């Protein structure tokens, strides 16, 4: 008893904190739990006046089948993947060389270029949406994958982030590579890139999440359902079923949220770093 009391006293605040945090966490995670639980329930349990936490009768297969067959959700997910990957590759191709030049080479216009990057960092995509739309309209590629991809080939944030990281690569390493007769492309590919994997991954995660979840831009440029991204697809499904089939709708939402959620749980530290780097913006 004499020994138990100090232990209790020491653990008491800790337990209190855990109790408080668990309660808050339950509230924060509730939308996810409710989404998944609803996607398991048949309609009569969803449209019921009392709260049923767990499904009495499991309608999992029916709900998910309807979510996948009443919409082209699989196609939309494919579109989403294609767009996200294409954007990421193009962003790397444009921003890695530019960031390297800004960090390690001296050339006329470098300062002006960097000022431009800093200025563009302040411009949100929504502020240039009208001209982007006009450009795509006059080229005639609204309603296409290009419309979803081309405006995002440039990421000034990517250039800025990578430049900061590349500055930290020792000059000796690069000079040595030059002495070995490598040209600048080879140096980027075999010296700079292998030494910057963490920064590249952080930026990659940031970019993929931003464009997988984007809604504003696809909404503006797309009419044709063939090119719908997952976000447009799930909203379209919700408009179409207009409150009559929540089981399938929650199944569709689960399917859209799941890929990133699983990836997040597998590589949490990287994800949190990746998204927090956006804090530098």
């Amino acid at each position, binding site marked *: 008893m004499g020994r138990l009391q100090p232990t209790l006293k020491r653990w008491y605040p800790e337990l209190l904190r855990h109790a408080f945090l668990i309660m808050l966490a339950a509230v924060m995670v509730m*939308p996810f739990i409710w989404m998944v639980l*609803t996607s398991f329930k048949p309609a009569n349990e969803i449209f019921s006046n009392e709260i049923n936490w767990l499904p009495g009768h499991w309608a999992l297969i029916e709900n998910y089948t309807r979510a996948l067959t009443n919409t082209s959700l699989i196609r939309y997910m494919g579109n989403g993947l294609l767009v996200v990957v294409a954007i990421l590759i193009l962003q790397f191709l444009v921003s890695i060389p530019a960031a390297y030049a800004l960090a390690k080479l001296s050339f006329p216009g470098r300062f002006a270029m960097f000022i431009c990057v800093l200025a563009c960092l302040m411009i949100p995509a929504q502020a240039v949406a009208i*001209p982007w*739309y006009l450009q795509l309209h006059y080229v005639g590629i609204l309603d296409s994958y290009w419309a979803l991809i081309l405006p995002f080939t440039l990421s000034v944030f990517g250039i800025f982030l990578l430049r900061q990281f590349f500055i930290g690569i020792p000059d000796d390493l690069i000079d040595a590579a030059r002495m070995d007769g490598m040209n*600048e492309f080879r140096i980027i590919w075999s010296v700079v890139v292998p030494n910057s994997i963490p920064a590249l991954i952080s930026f990659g995660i940031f970019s993929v999440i931003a464009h997988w979840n984007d809604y504003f831009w696809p909404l503006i440029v797309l009419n044709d359902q063939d090119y719908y991204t997952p976000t447009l697809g799930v909203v379209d499904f919700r408009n179409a079923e207009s409150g009559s089939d929540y089981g399938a709708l929650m199944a*569709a939402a689960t399917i859209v949220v799941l890929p990133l959620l699983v990836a997040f749980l597998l590589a949490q530290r990287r994800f949190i770093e990746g998204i927090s780097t956006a804090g530098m913006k």
Partner: protein
Amino acid sequence: MNFHRRISIARYRYGEQLWGIGLSAPAFILMILLMLGPIALTMLLSLTDWQLGMGNFSWIGLKNYESAVNDPIFWKSLFNTSVYVAVVMTGSIGLGLLLALMINQLSFGKGFYRTLFFLPVMASLVAMTIVWEFLLHPEFGLINQLLTALGGTPNNWLRDEDWALAALCVIGIWHQAGFNMVLFIAGLTAIPKFLYEAADIDGVPPGFSRFRHITWPLLGPVTLFIVVMTAIKAFQVFDTVQILTQGGPSYSSEVLLLTIYKEGFEYFRTGYAAALTVVFLTLVILVTVVKSLFLEKKVKYT
């Protein structure tokens, strides 16, 4: 060897400039095409009466800005956006700080909570907005059902003029709090432990006074930074509003980006939408400039 090295470096210097220009050229051209050019074009368009699809237009000076100033919907939209920014900022920063302080003091389970509270940040906001709509369903939504069970009065939150914007704020706070929590945890971890040991020796009691005299002042720069970040994000609120309320009922949840979207891409009043965009951009840049003035030298990014 040394001699040869110097020669090859000198020869290299000629090439370096060419490489520098060549490697940054694609990014530079894209910056003109996708950022700087479009900003200039938006400003020019805001001085015209052009509507998309029309062949001709005329210069009308500041008329678009005048119509905005005389349009009660524009003011309503600006007002709602400011309310949203203020509420979401206070709520998500307060909650983020509270969570960070609690989690930071735990002796086990830090990672577990951090993961849970971070889930809303990275999940697709659009998909989760649809889940929220169901949670807020007037008859079968969990929130009203819980309220009824606890003896409260259910409400049609998203169709109620007094509640629509509030509901959107709640979703905004839910979405943003975990992000601020992570930044606060990073800030707390950076505070040197010896300061608290010194406080022990000086007899500063744990709890609020320690928070006030040590933690809070040292978190200052991080906090300012988070305030600006959250403000900019909240200014850009669009997805939830467009999906859940379309700015209604009777403009009670109309926000700036939604107004721009409707004018520009539903009514195709391009000139007017461009003027509103210029207002929007000015506000965002103002916040960013304030941030640079106050923060650039105080916050360590890495």
